[in-house]
């Protein structure tokens, strides 16, 4: 249930909100419950033709020859669409904003670079006839060595995946093979701390699997234009991309969409519209290009796999004084949106924590996998998974409560971020305090009283310096205790440290009884550090 904690940062808003927090009916709900919402495939057209695609069965292969003569004679076949029919057969999605080079063909020409890559299209009077004709096409391949691992792809002698980026890395500003973040001197700092935590994290690709698969229908209009009904999440993005690939003016296309049967990022890639429009233009009849579930899984872009190494230097008192992150994004065979994911990742390091020495190297790597794309916080989600696992390990290593460890290291107003921007309107400490309260998780009093508004800025840096001055005389890095060896599974037990574990700490207050009623929304005796109702006192923050 939604709950507003108006006691926290009460000066942030006027509390005269009329819509936020009030139930309101969605404008599309009646359509959803009556089965009348207009998804792209609910539009009916007489004599609709169907486009099906021949796809590569190999992850990396040279196409020696294609024999589609039997398919051309198959019943119901109206047209075969070959790579040479595509007016602009090389594109990258973000070329619309001048970010990256065109690197992906709509239909493969001489080489296929991932399993499922489109090679040839067949338009027929029924989906079944199109599929049966696709099965009649004979392709002869020379298989090529393939690479499926991001670090293998960067080794000397690795197979080159994408000829636009022969070194298997995306190029930023046409010269940098990765994104860098440098703040302080992480290498020097990491030689000093009490404990060094060095870990590897891996996140698999994830398929969005929307219940409605990607698809579109193109209908020639009476005025030389084409009406395109589509499942896209990005209507104008898809319109411009389709116009570019078809080498037509965007005002020749009329896109109709907005009712999307689940997207989650998997419907921004303009996967079906360009060829669907091309087919309708070549034949002059309505054409549908709809993914089967198998195509959605094999060819529809997933969230890319990510490998992330995080190395922290931590003082015994719990302060993190250095963090090094090395991350590899698996873009698959082509760029699509992974180049942008890497930029987002760089912007998110080192997480919402004030760390005086930060070092990041993030690579967008090409492999012979299905090209990856957007999905719910892509670039940030996997990094957060790695960083928060790392925070749990850090807390265990110094014998601290994991929530207190986060509160201790959290951004406070006035802190300098690794990107040289001042932290403002921070609220991690308050979120952690409320989460602990909700979970009946005892925090020591000093941590319950900490605030995002106190201790930030210069004080934090002085504190970090003091931490360093307290470092042991021996500068040799100390490995994490055996409780967190690198070989253990990534699950970390939230165990309270034993009373004898360093540093000594007072016993936590007894948790409230389990069957206690939930606390009121705004407890009268709030112990949170944020001043209550500070708008009254004229201390409103920006």
């Amino acid at each position, binding site marked *: 249930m939604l709950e507003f904690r108006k006691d926290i940062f009460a000066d942030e808003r006027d509390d005269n909100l009329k819509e936020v927090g009030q139930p309101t009916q*969605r404008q599309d709900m009646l*359509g959803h*419950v*009556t089965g009348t919402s207009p998804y792209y495939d609910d539009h009916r057209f007489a004599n609709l033709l169907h486009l099906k695609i021949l796809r590569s069965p190999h992850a990396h292969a040279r196409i020696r020859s294609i024999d589609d003569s039997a398919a051309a004679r198959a019943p119901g076949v109206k047209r075969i669409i070959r790579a040479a029919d595509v007016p602009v057969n090389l594109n990258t999605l973000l070329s619309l904003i001048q970010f990256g080079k065109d690197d992906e063909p709509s239909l493969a020409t001489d080489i296929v670079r991932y399993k499922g890559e489109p090679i040839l299209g067949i338009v027929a009077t029924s989906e079944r006839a199109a599929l049966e004709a696709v099965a009649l096409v004979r392709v002869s391949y020379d298989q090529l060595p393939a690479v499926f691992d991001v670090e293998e792809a960067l080794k000397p002698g690795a197979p080159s995946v994408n000829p636009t980026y022969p070194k298997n890395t995306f190029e930023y500003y046409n010269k940098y093979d990765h994104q860098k973040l440098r703040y302080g001197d992480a290498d020097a700092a990491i030689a000093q701390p009490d404990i060094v935590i060095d870990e590897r994290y891996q996140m698999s690709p994830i398929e969005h699997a929307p*219940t409605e698969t990607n698809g579109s229908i193109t209908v020639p209009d009476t005025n030389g234009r084409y009406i395109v009904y589509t499942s896209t999440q990005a209507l104008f993005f898809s319109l411009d991309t389709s116009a570019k690939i078809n080498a037509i003016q965007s005002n020749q296309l009329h896109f109709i969409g907005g009712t999307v049967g*689940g997207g989650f990022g998997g419907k921004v890639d303009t996967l079906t519209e360009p060829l669907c429009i091309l087919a309708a233009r070549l034949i002059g009849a309505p054409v549908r290009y709809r993914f089967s*579930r198998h195509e959605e899984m094999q060819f529809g872009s997933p969230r890319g796999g990510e490998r992330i190494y995080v190395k922290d230097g931590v003082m015994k008192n719990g302060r993190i004084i250095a963090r090094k992150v090395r991350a590899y994004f698996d873009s698959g065979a082509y760029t699509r949106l992974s180049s942008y994911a890497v930029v987002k990742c760089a912007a998110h390091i080192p997480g919402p924590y004030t760390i005086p020495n930060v070092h990041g190297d993030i690579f967008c790597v090409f492999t012979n996998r299905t090209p990856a794309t957007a999905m719910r916080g892509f670039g940030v989600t996997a990094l957060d998974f790695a960083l928060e696992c790392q925070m749990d390990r850090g807390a265990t290593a110094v014998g601290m409560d994991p929530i207190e460890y986060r509160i201790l290291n959290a951004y406070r107003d006035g802190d300098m971020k690794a990107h040289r921007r001042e932290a403002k309107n921070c609220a991690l400490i308050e979120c952690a305090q409320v989460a602990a309260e909700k979970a009946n998780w005892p925090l020591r009093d000093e941590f319950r009283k900490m605030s995002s508004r106190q201790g930030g800025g210069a004080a934090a840096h002085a504190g970090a310096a003091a931490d360093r001055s307290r470092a042991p005389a021996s500068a040799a890095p100390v490995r994490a205790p055996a409780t967190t060896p690198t070989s253990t599974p990534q699950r970390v037990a939230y165990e309270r440290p034993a009373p004898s574990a360093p540093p000594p700490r007072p016993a936590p207050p007894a948790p409230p009884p389990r069957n206690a009623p939930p606390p009121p929304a705004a407890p009268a005796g709030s112990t949170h550090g944020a001043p209550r109702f500070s708008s009254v006192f004229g201390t409103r923050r920006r």
Partner: protein
Amino acid sequence: MKTPIQFRLNGEGVATFVEGGANLLDTLRESVGDTSVKGGCWQGTCGTCTVLIDGMPRLSCVTLAEGCAGRSIESVAGLRRGAELHPLQSAFMERFAAQCGYCTPGMLMAAKALLDKNPNPTRENVVDAICGNICRCTGYEPIINAVLDAARSDGLRRA
């Protein structure tokens, strides 16, 4: 070679011609024109295309159309009585039990099959009834609550 078949759809007689091997999903959408039935996987795994055949929830994508001759089929298009929504539809609206809406027709039909047989289901009965229907927006809790609400509503007792 097409075969003529007749069945009842939401109480009305329907006659159409189908190809051998045609499934009920395509027949309803393409031939009969009832697009309230949605296709999700075309392989019997997601529950999106659920309709009722003689009161039983069935996956129309893996049901042969020819086998439906003489049967009575219900889809979400026939759920409301004129302008009045079925209690399940009202409860889904009230409980925010749809996000993208694509699984909703199948969810509603699976839930209707349950309530038609068992007007006082437990939470476990509801979970069991919709366990073959995937919602990728993962709104299962509001859906379960909506079905329980519908079961408790006056409308269902009248219906």
